[in-house]
């Protein structure tokens, strides 16, 4: 260490450099501690996953809770690599912004829960990959009759029926949502959206506009929609009602019943191979 007398002793650059390296030492120390803790946690989690692998595979509810826990600590249970820092749950906040940043850096850096061994122990990535494929296939087949919109509960029931017949553990609506979330990267329109009180799985890139969503919500409540219903109950003018209904029929989102007292529109039936 160079000693200088007088004003030189307060040379800012050198002091800065020294303080900086001291600061870095502290941060590094915290980092190392956190890393050690994470690695301990990782091992505990891996052991847990292994001893409960069967249950995770077989029980949709347990699987959902496990997946939520993984997500909360920044681990994607399906990829067994770290989630992007932005998506790490705030449940990890330590109260210090800089420490949080460090935590996220550790999680991102260290690819916690080492890859293949984890996947093999759990096998749940297989479940989701297989499920995603089944979702795609089912939606493709039913698109012609439902316009690419199917209630998540219906899809879950259909796929469970199929899986019961052809093999595959039971899945829950939560599993479907996670599988569809993974499909978003395909950018072919797969998404779970909220329509009224229902979660719908959409498999086409066409967005629902406000009027269309209203029509679907009405269908959910009443069972069907008619032009006069929209005009009398919602105050729409006839042209608007006619236009929206026609557009939706054109998009395959509604079926037409021409044998009632007026033309009535229904949401597509739950069809599709089981």
């Amino acid at each position, binding site marked *: 260490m160079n000693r200088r007398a007088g004003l030189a002793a307060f040379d800012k650059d050198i002091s800065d450099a020294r303080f900086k390296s001291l600061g870095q030492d502290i941060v590094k120390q915290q980092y190392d501690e956190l890393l050690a803790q994470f690695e301990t946690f990782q091992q505990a989690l891996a052991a847990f996953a292994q001893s409960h692998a069967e249950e995770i595979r077989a029980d949709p509810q347990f699987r959902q809770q496990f997946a939520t826990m993984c997500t909360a600590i920044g681990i994607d249970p399906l990829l067994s690599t770290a989630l992007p820092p932005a998506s790490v749950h705030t449940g990890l906040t330590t109260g210090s912004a800089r420490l949080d940043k460090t935590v996220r850096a550790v999680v991102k850096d260290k690819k916690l829960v080492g890859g293949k061994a984890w996947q093999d122990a759990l096998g749940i990535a297989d479940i989701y990959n297989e499920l995603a494929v089944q979702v795609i296939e089912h939606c493709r087949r039913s698109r012609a009759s439902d316009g690419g919109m199917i209630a998540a509960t219906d899809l879950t029931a259909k796929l469970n029926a199929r899986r019961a017949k052809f093999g595959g553990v039971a899945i829950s609506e939560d599993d479907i949502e996670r599988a569809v979330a993974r499909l978003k990267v395909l950018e072919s329109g797969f998404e779970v959206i909220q329509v009224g009180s229902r979660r719908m799985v959409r498999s086409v890139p066409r967005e629902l506009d406000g009027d269309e969503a209203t029509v679907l919500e009405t269908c959910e*409540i009443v069972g*069907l929609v008619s032009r006069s*219903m929209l005009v009398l*109950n919602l105050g729409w003018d006839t042209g608007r009602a006619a236009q929206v209904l026609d557009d939706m029929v054109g998009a395959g989102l509604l079926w037409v*019943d021409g044998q*009632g*007292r007026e033309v009535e529109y229904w949401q597509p039936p739950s069809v599709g191979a089981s």
Partner: protein
Amino acid sequence: MNGGSGAVESSAAAVNTRALSVEAPRSVPTPTSSPVKTDGEDVADLPPLYHFPPFFTRQPNSETLSGQLGSWGSLILEWCRRRRVFVVSATAEECGKVPFRNTAIDRALKPAFLREILEGMCSRGEAEWLDGGEKKKGSGRGAGSAAGQDRCLMLWRTADAWADMLDKHIDESGAQGQVLTLYELTDGSRGSSANELKDLDPLILRRAIEVLAKRGKAHLMRGPDGEDSGVKFY
């Protein structure tokens, strides 16, 4: 909303619960609990789509329509197979009967739409027009046709499969070497092994015999005026 709620209620009340109880959208419940018998026929084995009112309306969306035509085709073929129906006619009279009509939800196919459905079945080899029925396409909506112009033969079993059955019956009844009339084969007089052949449509029977003839197991005989007079089995 006073006038509005009236419209909603009456509209909803027009929708029958039975129609909605099986995989169809929810509705305001109306009191219907007993299993419905339509025209004395049991419709329990028909698919849920049968109870979906729009299923009886030709859908304007072409993708939806093509699925709908396929669904109707399967429904009709299966109905015919179960009840040994050989011919379906694209007429108003036929559309008044099950399964082309569902009295529980008060819906029925229109003859023109039934014709379109049958056309689709023919193009898939599931059916065949008798008497050149397809020539009526575009010439008016199925009204006032000559008898036989609207009849469609249902091929819910292949000619080969029918031939196998015929063969089996001949073996079981020991009829090799005999000459039988076509009438005898289908009138149910030849014992229980002939049950499958009872009232078999003559055209299908002929085809089955032709298949057996190709296999060298039968010979269709003709009378002096060219009419079928009998079959000899080997």
